[in-house]
């Protein structure tokens, strides 16, 4: 029987599993990079671009969804104004970032080109994440619901007499 505090321990275990898998993926990449022949992919620049663009996209999407679901009784001014200003701040910050020369190579160095390619990368990664989520949890749900259980004895009872026919 589960006791108080078990839920916290369970989620800690699950977090550790995820962390271990992430570390494993990094080790695999580093180990294979040591074997040589890797292009300079500017991982930190990619990280920072991806973080700022994701920030803009999520805030922009939340702003538009807030507008879409708002009505006269809802007081959504803080979240509408907040998400809008945060998205604008993200755009300005991204512009400053590019102007200061922190750009991803292989793409024209103007702000729009860098933003467009970064956004497409994020959209493709999001597509991959959704796909793997649907595949994993779809299969898991199929397996979990596939377990045969003994029939419920209540189903054999008559609805009028509530007596089992065999008795």
């Amino acid at each position, binding site marked *: 029987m589960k006791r108080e505090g078990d839920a916290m321990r369970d989620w800690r275990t699950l977090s550790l599993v995820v962390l271990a898998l992430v570390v494993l*993926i990094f080790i695999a990449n580093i180990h294979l990079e040591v074997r040589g022949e890797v*292009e300079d992919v500017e991982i930190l620049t990619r990280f920072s671009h991806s973080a700022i663009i994701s920030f803009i996209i*999520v805030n922009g999407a939340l702003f538009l969804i807030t507008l879409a679901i708002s009505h006269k009784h809802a007081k959504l001014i803080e979240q509408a104004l907040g998400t809008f200003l945060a998205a604008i701040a993200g755009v300005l910050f991204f512009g400053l970032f590019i102007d200061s020369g922190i750009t991803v190579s292989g793409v024209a160095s103007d702000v729009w080109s860098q933003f467009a*390619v970064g956004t*497409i990368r994020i959209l493709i990664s999001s597509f991959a994440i959704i796909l*793997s989520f649907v595949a994993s949890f779809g299969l898991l749900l*199929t397996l979990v619901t596939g377990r045969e259980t003994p029939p419920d004895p209540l189903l054999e009872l008559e609805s009028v007499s509530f007596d089992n026919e065999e008795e």
Partner: protein
Amino acid sequence: MLVEEYLLTHYWLPLFLLPLGFGMAISNERTRRLIGVGLLILISLAIISYPERLDSTNEGWSLHLILTMIGPITALLFGIWFALFSGPIPVAPLPRGMRPFGFALMILSLAWLCWMIFESRPTIEGTSNPWWQHLVSSLLTSMIIIAGFGAAFVLVMGDERNKESVIMSIISIGSFLLLIYLLAEGSSTDDPVFWRSSSWGVLGDLGGMLFGGGLAVVLFVTFVWFGEKRMGAPEEVEPLTKDESERVKEILKENLEGVA
């Protein structure tokens, strides 16, 4: 650099309006819901009617990538649907005989994807899709983590779910081995150097997405909290007046007469 007009009208503007259409489509008001569905249909039509060749821009290549994935994704979704709803569940079950067919469709989807990875990288007239390695690296990396999480989840939270946990572990480890193989040996169309570079870049992108997206969500929660805080506690309701009390008594009397 100026953006081409057709890219704005057939790619970026529809993408920008997508959250608005989605938000309106899930609204409680019927009129707004209809407008939302109409907007989503318009967005789909705008993207489908992309006027230029798909290999002319990065945006076009990303649409081509989605088109090439329609086959495996359809097989996967139908496979899950058939296997799930032909199992021992009370919700609209399909015939039991369809369950193996559902699993067969899932295996077909996996085989199709592996064939594309190793033998048939998506191309247009001999030019390879530049986003393919990014998609595959992202897919395998996220599959390792999500399937691994699923395996641990059913084992920790479930009741005697060892079989399910083993299957999810096999998927996670299989994805990991496939990624390692691509990083070490490459595929018939791509040298391992490109796979390694792609995988490193994907790790940067996924980490950035997690950080930036997470920060935006935390900020959003803070805005909602500010809004709730500013509203304050609701005012106290005044007690009923003498007339109101009399009216309530009348209504109660009318409705309870003859019950007791």
